[in-house]
């Protein structure tokens, strides 16, 4: 098999003009690659499928808030933001989780959650947009997906990633999903969070919102005690809000100032998102 492969490869190198033959060679090379699947890229279809499984688990921890109008409102804000990005074609979905804690989650493939606890601390649509844009960046930059893949390399043997991706009911799949859910209680790299803050501010500004939405939320969080049960998990999994505000001030001041005058939509937020 290896000899045949080598011969075929040398043959193809000698005869580059034979397109049909090269096509076969590419197929051969692809199957050779899938043997080393622990290091291969997870494609978009697989990313979405993994995301569905992870989203279902998060929804097992906290269901959606029952208010349909609120859910549609958050989807409008989120989808408008996502339309301004390089992955606008993903099946974006946004959900408000019925949980008192203050938190938000990004799931690979385009699913974003925000808790009702965090929503109730917000004062404007621009603040909501700032947080959703931060989460959208995690999906754009595949922060969770890369962390899952990195974990799979060390904890899944041989071709287990291949099985995990192919077979949704395999044991390997279950392990892969555990790696994913762990991330939501352990957190991403700090650098991923700072990047999501910077790029998120730019996305909210591009969508026409007051660019200070995210900093305003960070300031609200900064005012809270880190030991507070409402923010314990969020503080454990993110850099301190004061540190994030400093980083935004250092890198994003010109962007923040250029778009500070855009709409905050305080009234629309109050009408659509306040508890009923």
């Amino acid at each position, binding site marked *: 098999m290896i000899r045949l492969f080598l011969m075929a490869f040398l043959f193809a190198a000698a005869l580059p003009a034979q397109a049909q033959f090269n096509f076969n060679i590419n197929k051969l090379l692809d199957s050779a690659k899938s043997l080393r699947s622990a290091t291969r890229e997870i494609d978009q279809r697989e990313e979405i499928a993994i995301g569905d499984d992870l989203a279902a688990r998060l929804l097992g921890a906290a269901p959606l808030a029952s208010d349909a109008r609120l859910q549609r409102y958050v989807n*409008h804000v989120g*989808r408008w933001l996502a339309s301004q990005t390089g992955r606008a074609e993903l099946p974006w979905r946004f959900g408000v989780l019925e949980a*008192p804690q203050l938190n938000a989650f990004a799931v690979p493939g385009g699913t974003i959650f925000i808790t009702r606890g965090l929503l109730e601390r917000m004062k404007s649509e621009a603040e909501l947009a700032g947080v959703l844009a931060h989460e959208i960046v995690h999906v754009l930059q595949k922060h969770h997906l890369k962390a899952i893949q990195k974990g799979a390399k060390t904890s899944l043997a041989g071709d287990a990633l291949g099985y995990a991706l192919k077979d949704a009911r395999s044991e390997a799949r279950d392990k892969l999903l555990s790696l994913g859910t762990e991330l939501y209680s352990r957190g991403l790299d700090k650098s991923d969070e700072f990047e999501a803050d910077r790029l998120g501010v730019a996305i909210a500004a591009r969508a026409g919102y007051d660019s200070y939405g995210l900093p305003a939320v960070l300031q609200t969080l900064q005012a809270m005690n880190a030991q507070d049960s409402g923010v314990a998990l969020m503080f454990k999994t993110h850099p301190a809000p004061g540190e994030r505000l400093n980083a935004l001030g250092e890198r994003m001041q010109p962007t923040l100032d250029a778009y500070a005058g855009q709409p905050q939509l305080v009234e629309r937020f109050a009408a659509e998102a306040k508890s009923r």
Partner: protein
Amino acid sequence: MKIAVFIFTTFISFSCAAEPAFLLRATELKKEPATDAETVAALAENAAVETVERKGGWTRVKAGTAEGWVRMLALRYGGPGAAKRGDSGASQLFNVARTGTSGTQVTTGVRGLDAEMIASARPNPAELARLTQFAATPDAAAGFAAQGELQRQQVREVK
């Protein structure tokens, strides 16, 4: 019990309206939210203020008898080295509302998203289907943005 919860939530929203904060660096207190506005007073590093409202990148504050605007990012809430404040009661409050008994879980009450809940969660496919139902189309989102007079801008990314 309901009255107690009501008083508690009222207190939370009131305390959000005027919050104690301090200045990260020496800052000019401005009459208007603009760099070239008249300076009302010079505030020292760590000066204590009370925040009133935010407008773009500026926050209106009271500093002693003076009132004016400072750069929002120059502010941090609490006090420099101030004692940690207590729990907001977010979780407890929720439990009271759900079960009537502080801190205990009765039937269908949701404790919410702590690390333990996430780790032990079983998939909920029915909620996933509901989530998908609420998704907005790009066109619907664009119409919604137009209603809010949100205008698309060219913004450079900072890597």
